[in-house]
């Protein structure tokens, strides 16, 4: 009897595993397909590739427009990371610990950019920055990206902070530390996993962002803008080479965040 009941359950588990496997394949398929194309010897999109060649990587590295766009994107993403961490970490302390009613509203406000459509945020900032003549300025893009990265930083850091026992800060203060020293020596080191995840997620958010960059970058393109233009105009495998490089970057970021970070996604903490 027990044996008979167990049978369908195992079957169910096998079906579930197969289904999950198919979904994972669906998720990974587009990432895998760009690899063979990036080393294709054909100059137009052909699959399977007729031969092997590094030419598209070479073309990327030798084209100053691509390289400039890449460097600009790095600059923007790094500044955005610094800004969103510098603002988001203190904000998380306030949101988690303050009992003021206003903080609940602030909590919603910070999360709002996740659900307000990017296109609306983009044109709203575009119209303001156009007036302030901040179009085509790289740090203008970084500041705008900070609005998008801030919710991720706050969500990750707040989650870390909620599991932190505040008695430790009190203990440190009782032992002779001022509050800033207690936070610096006791709290932040223990939040390091959350901080690392948050920083990398902020970086990736900015590095990959297109819609805001499309409006704000003007003539000085970021990498996603340059990729977008390429896809629209001349779809050649250079973009596959760039894609492969970006996937590697994502791998590195995700790897570092997983190894040294925690809770890359809310709910995964502790596993």
């Amino acid at each position, binding site marked *: 009897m027990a044996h008979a009941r167990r049978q369908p359950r195992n079957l169910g588990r096998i079906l579930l595993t197969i289904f999950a496997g198919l979904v994972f394949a669906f998720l990974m398929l587009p990432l895998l397909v760009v690899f063979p194309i990036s080393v294709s010897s054909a100059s137009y999109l052909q699959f399977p590739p007729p031969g092997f060649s590094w030419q598209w990587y070479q073309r990327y590295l030798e084209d100053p427009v691509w390289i400039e766009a890449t460097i600009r994107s790095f600059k923007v993403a790094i500044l955005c990371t610094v800004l969103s961490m510098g603002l988001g970490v203190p904000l998380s302390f306030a949101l988690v610990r303050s009992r003021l009613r206003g903080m609940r509203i602030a909590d919603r406000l910070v999360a709002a950019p996740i659900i307000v459509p990017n296109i609306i945020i983009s044109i709203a900032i575009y119209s303001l920055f156009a007036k302030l003549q901040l179009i085509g300025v790289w740090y203008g893009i970084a500041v705008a990206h900070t609005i998008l990265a801030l919710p991720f930083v706050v969500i990750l850091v707040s989650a870390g902070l909620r599991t932190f*026992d505040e*008695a*430790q800060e*009190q*203990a*440190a*203060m*009782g*032992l*002779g*530390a*001022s509050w800033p*020293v207690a936070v610096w*020596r*006791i709290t932040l*080191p*223990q939040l390091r996993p959350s901080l690392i995840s948050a920083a990398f997620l902020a970086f990736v958010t900015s590095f990959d962002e297109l819609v805001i960059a499309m409006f704000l970058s003007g003539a000085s393109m970021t990498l996603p803008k340059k990729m977008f233009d390429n896809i629209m105009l001349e779809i050649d495998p250079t973009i596959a080479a760039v894609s492969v490089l970006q996937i590697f970057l994502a791998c590195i970021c995700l790897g570092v965040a997983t190894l040294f970070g925690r809770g890359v996604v809310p709910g995964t903490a502790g596993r």
Partner: protein
Amino acid sequence: MDLTVRGVVRRFGAVTALAGVDLTVAEGELLTILGPSGSGKTTLLKVVAGFEIPDEGTVHLGTADVTMAPPRSRDVGMVFQNYALFPHLTVAQNVAFPLEMRRLPKPERTQRVAEALALVELTDYGHRLPRQLSGGQQQRVALARAIVFKPRLLLLDEPFGALDRKLRESMQLEVRRLQRRLRLTTLFITHDQEEALILSDRIAVMSAALIEQVGTPAEVYARPATRFVADFVGESNLLDGIATEGHGAEVSGLGRVQAGASTGAPGARATLLLRPEALRVGAEAAALPNRASARILETVFLGLSVKLRLQVEGGPEMLARLPLRPSAPLPVTEGEVVPLGFATEDVHVIRHG
């Protein structure tokens, strides 16, 4: 250094956590604040540590007024309920933390840490992380960290709650030894009356934002000042009656009970305390001045003694505790009706107020 708390009041909105508390802890003394949760003892601790500022009243350490001083400048060592050890620092780094904050030179720091760890018998554990230690060892690290900077006052906030019973008892004795040896002025917070009786030089019993009684463990146990103290500390039979002439009181079911002291003006209400171990049952009861008969409702075997729940005929339910010898059988059985009695000097009169 001695601690003096004078007239301390602390309110949180409509709730009064401390309603005028006076307390003195003499130099080198271990004083326990004993009270149920919500009695205000934690708030009092926070006021002494500097995590709360009282609305009224003062806190003095020695002659210095520290009422408004921040925690870091009070030089008070504290052991937290869950120890609050820093999990990312080693044992030695944890213990060194207060010295580092006081900017002691490195060689002196190292030496003081070694001394403190030796005191709590953890000399070889300096390089470990807190999570690699047992509960009792963690507790000792917390203690070492609280005393390494030679604080003016040591605060212990229910430090034994997380330990199992056996470990708890040995840690209690260890803390007591250490405190005596270093002559540390110590304020100890607990809701566990047994712990308070074992550890303290004096006990302050708190209830509803006020201190009800301060005294040695023996005083508090034998001569509780209020009904609350009698009830909270130890097990008790509280008999309500009407005072009569000559140190007596009329208690329903027991008739006239003879007490060792004045029961107050005749005709007034009187509350008498009788500890369970003062009750005698069976043949022994016959010679005693206060006598009654009662049915045994329940017997609870406790090893060294047996606890009886008794129903006095036409009167109150009472608890008795009879000593046992390992070889002897239980002297009574459930359901049996037995004579009971108690001595005059074992009846303590609780004043009404």
